[in-house]
């Protein structure tokens, strides 16, 4: 089929539809390394604007840490730029093995397998381990990559209400006839910033003979006393059967992910997980940088402690000024606005004030749950946070939402 004008028109109309629905995503070009202060060119061709970044997953501020950059440079020099191979042919260097070993130690598991991303890890892990006699029972707010991975797996699927342990128990009871029951959850939920109740989930898994899967991408490196993740925070280190996580957020922010957990399960992924088998190895430069990141986070908790302090300061500031935020302890702090247009308008005005945040609305979050998701970093200093709070107060006041409840905001702006 030639790419005729009719075909072109058809695709153009689809794009128009996305624009009309207000769902069209535009990239903003950043002209500096990732940091608390960045320079952004938006719209395309505009003068670069200096803004404070409150929407990166750069939780520990390591994305451009000089030691990490230097380690990556050394990796580039000693192991080269690429390997032109998947892992199992000729794409595994000694440093891949070292990084997997270091991740296993850090996460407190039995073994680890690297993937090009956590999206790939989640895409491959379920299909590699489960079959049609099994059941996957997922929290309803798990990340999209888990949803995609579950779709690729032949096991039956069911869901439980977000963090609702009674509902999960009901589902576990319902599915006692299956060979394997796998409970699936995020460690920290990316849109709400709340933590899974892993201690209760592990107890239910024991009671109903189930396994537990946790995607800890928004936790690894900073949640828990020594930053090992949600399982450390909940006191269940060593009791999670499968953890997937990313090197693309707190742990350096470049790319790469992994499946970590029981050694037989990890080995099965090595044998069967298609994104591992059929995509290129993680580049040496990233592997070298990631090993340095693990050195840094294992040597001191200084960065995660600063992030914790920043998070508290930010949450307290937003609450005191009268904004409606989702409760919790994580550095993901959603400012609830409920109305999609209000979220977009406020994000735009905040950008004008030099604060880079993004509005989220349906279908990324449920209808009527629009919000601006703010994210803290150890790279933020107090003056960044103060400027951010000042801008939020000014913009929120413009829209008359300070001190307003969910009901009142809905009455003013609708859904």
């Amino acid at each position: 089929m030639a790419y005729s004008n009719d075909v072109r028109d058809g695709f153009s109309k689809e794009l128009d539809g996305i624009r009309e629905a207000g769902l069209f995503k535009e990239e903003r070009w950043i002209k500096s390394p990732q940091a608390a202060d960045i320079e952004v060119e938006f719209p395309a061709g505009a003068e670069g604007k200096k803004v404070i970044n409150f929407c990166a997953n750069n939780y520990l501020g390591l994305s451009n840490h000089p030691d990490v950059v230097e380690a990556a440079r050394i990796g580039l020099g000693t192991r080269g730029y690429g390997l032109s191979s998947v892992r199992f042919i000729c794409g595994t260097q000694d440093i891949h093995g070292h990084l997997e070993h270091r991740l296993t130690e850090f996460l407190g598991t039995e073994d680890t397998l690297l993937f090009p991303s956590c999206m790939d890890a989640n895409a491959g892990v379920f299909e590699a381990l489960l079959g049609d006699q099994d059941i996957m029972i997922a929290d309803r707010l798990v990340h999209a990559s888990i949803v995609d991975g579950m779709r690729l797996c032949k096991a039956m699927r069911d869901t439980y209400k977000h963090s609702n342990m009674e509902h999960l128990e009901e589902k576990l009871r319902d599915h006692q006839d299956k060979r394997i029951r796998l409970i699936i959850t995020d460690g920290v939920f990316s849109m709400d910033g709340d933590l899974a109740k892993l201690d209760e989930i592990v107890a239910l898994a024991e009671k109903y003979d189930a396994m537990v899967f946790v995607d800890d991408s928004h936790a690894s490196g900073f949640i828990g006393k020594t930053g090992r993740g949600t399982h450390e925070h909940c006191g269940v280190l060593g009791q999670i059967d499968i953890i997937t996580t990313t090197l693309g957020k707190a742990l350096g922010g470049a790319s790469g992910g992994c499946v970590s957990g029981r050694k037989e399960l990890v080995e099965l992924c090595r044998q069967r997980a298609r994104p591992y088998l059929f995509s290129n190895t993680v580049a040496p430069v990233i592997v070298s940088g990631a090993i340095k990141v693990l050195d840094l986070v294992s040597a001191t908790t200084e960065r995660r402690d600063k992030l914790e302090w920043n998070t508290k300061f930010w949450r307290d500031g937003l609450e005191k000024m009268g904004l409606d935020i989702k409760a919790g302890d994580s550095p993901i702090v959603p400012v609830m606005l409920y109305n999609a247009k209000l979220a977009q308008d406020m994000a735009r005005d905040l950008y004008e004030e030099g604060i880079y945040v993004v509005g989220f609305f349906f279908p990324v979050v449920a209808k009527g749950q629009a919000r601006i998701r703010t994210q803290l970093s150890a790279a933020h200093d107090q003056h960044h946070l103060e400027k951010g709070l000042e801008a939020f107060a000014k913009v929120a006041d413009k829209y008359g939402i300070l001190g307003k409840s969910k009901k009142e905001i809905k009455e003013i702006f609708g859904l």
Partner: protein
Amino acid sequence: MEEYKKAILEYVIKEYMEDDEDEEITYDTELISGGIVDSFSMVSLKRFLENKYDIQIPDADASPEAFDSVDKIAALVDRFKQA
């Protein structure tokens, strides 16, 4: 038919609505396209219908369109009960 609708609505509210939800669900509320029930969560709804009404709904008939409102689900149940 009214009995089916009542039982299905009751199940949908119990299974899919959060406790603090203030949205009201009626017989013609769009469940799938309205984002209340996602495609994974349809599994439990299908199992509920099959167990309660002693019917088998082939996957081809359990489409998002057929499950998009209590009205439509009740019509589907009615069709399989008659068959």
